[in-house]
């Protein structure tokens, strides 16, 4: 039983990472209308930037802030340099371009940092024992950070004018244009937000596990699956689906083995697209 609960805790942690990544995916999918495959490698970028920042400043917190800022900037840059020019083209063109950007980011990371895995220097703390379950305070901290990131994101989306404009653009781009909402500024804000969220997810992943150039790419499929399962363009749905999926994935490890975890995401993705393309929370707009 304790084993199960500990697995559950581990699952929830992974779930939060997947949930944040899925949130970033669904934000872009909802507003910019394409599946952003850069998300995975952008997660790695966030982790590496935080790692470098932490090494330079000696503080994990400052390093993480640098990582988040780096992610936001890279997100905005990818919009300004690439995605903005692909607005008139098909969703696949943007998807393909996002894959190209991801490869480039992965290459840059490999060149800058090498391929050996790295880890964040975390203070050594003994895990707590709550009801006989080992809970690491770091995990709790991470969960808090994730919750904070989610809170900020939802506040931006629902409590600020620019967030309202983002949602208007997501609902109807041409209408938004006509009613005078300046899409360029909205888009930059969106990409900054999505980039920041992606970085948080990446940093969390790096803290939980290890930092390698491939770490983010491996999360891409789960992030996509969760975004679709939650309903494209549905931030809450993406987070909930991500937590669910991440938890299930971790908890399945004793049964399907370490390697096949990702296959579960693939299965979920496939089933969601075929059976319920609008996701758990979505409206119409099928997968066809």
């Amino acid at each position: 039983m304790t084993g199960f609960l500990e697995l559950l805790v581990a699952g929830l942690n992974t779930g939060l990472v997947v949930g944040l990544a899925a949130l970033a995916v669904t934000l872009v999918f909802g507003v910019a209308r394409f599946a952003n495959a850069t998300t995975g490698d952008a997660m790695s970028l966030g982790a590496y930037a935080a790692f470098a920042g932490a090494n330079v400043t000696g503080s994990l917190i400052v390093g993480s802030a640098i990582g988040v800022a780096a992610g936001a900037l890279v997100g905005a840059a990818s919009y300004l340099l690439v995605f903005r020019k692909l607005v008139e083209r098909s969703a696949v063109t943007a998807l393909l371009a996002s894959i190209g950007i991801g490869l480039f980011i992965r290459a840059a990371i490999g060149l800058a940092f090498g391929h050996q895995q790295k880890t964040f220097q975390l203070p050594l703390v003994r895990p707590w024992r709550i009801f006989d379950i080992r809970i690491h305070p770091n995990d709790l901290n991470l969960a808090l950070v994730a919750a904070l990131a989610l809170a900020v994101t939802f506040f931006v989306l629902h409590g600020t004018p620019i967030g309202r404009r983002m949602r208007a653009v997501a609902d109807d781009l041409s209408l938004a244009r006509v009613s005078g909402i300046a899409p360029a500024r909205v888009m930059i804000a969106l990409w900054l937000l999505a980039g920041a969220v992606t970085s948080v997810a990446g940093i969390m992943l790096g803290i939980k596990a290890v930092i390698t150039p491939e770490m983010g790419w491996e999360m891409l499929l789960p992030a996509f699956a969760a975004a679709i399962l939650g309903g494209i363009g549905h931030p809450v749905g993406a987070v909930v689906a991500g937590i669910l999926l991440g938890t299930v994935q971790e908890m399945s490890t004793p049964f399907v083995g370490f390697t096949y975890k990702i296959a579960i995401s693939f299965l979920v993705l496939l089933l969601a697209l075929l059976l319920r393309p609008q996701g758990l929370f979505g409206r119409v707009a099928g997968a066809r």
Partner: protein
Amino acid sequence: MEAYIIAIAIITAIYVLLALGLNLQYGLTGLINFGHVGFFCVGAYTAALLSKHQISPLVTFPVAALLAALAAWPLGVVSLRLREDYFAIVSLGFSEVVRLVATSERWLTNGVQGISGIPKLMDGLVPRAAEPVAVLALLVAVNLGAILMMRRIASSPFGRVIEAIRDNEEAVKSLGKDPAGFKMKVLMLGAALAGVAGAFYAHYISFISPEQFVPLVTFQIWMAIIMGGVGRVSGALVGTLILMLFLEGSRFLRDIIPFIPDVEMASIRLGVVGVAIVLFTLYRPQGLMGDFTRR
């Protein structure tokens, strides 16, 4: 030097088969297949495993093609129900699952340790020294056959329909023709070619492991057909040549700049593939040889 050129030529010929298959699927039919390396993997492992049991290539190659084509079948079923970007993502997941299976099913594939000692194709048929040239000759013949087949398809009624599907699928339906069967055939045929390429690859490189069959290979082929010109058989050829020039040219770059270790070379190649894809999607999606429009 000569041996080096033959080696490059062999790899090029293998990649041409991959490009021809992808060109049939995307260039002619408009199917966004991001999982092409999965078929390559199935073909390679099939040939490797069967040949380790002393089964003749005359059998292993067709079986590799057949199994790769069968692997395309579920993907084909799915493609009919999904819009193109979702299918692209699913196909990407598919090739990753193939790689996961190769990694996990150690009893079959020996997992991450891979399969080594795959016999050379022409062993026993020709003297040791002449083996690479003989393989190259065979590959060239297979390439020619594949090119002729593709050209025949492209200029045929079948080719008309698949290009029509690419251009306007609803209109094809309104004429009483079902896109489903055509798409399925195209996916399976392209996969079969990739399977044959995989079989050649396994014998040539004599050691295969799951991490050789990563999505990067798929996107290198995508880069090849984009650069050469989507939709034309000649484009697939030209694009592959350019790809090989770049992949091998970077090796010379390493000779000139000696302090770049191997691993970094891989990163540089990765980066250039990424940048090339972005640049081409931005500025010249129709590639060097012109787009689908022939006139």
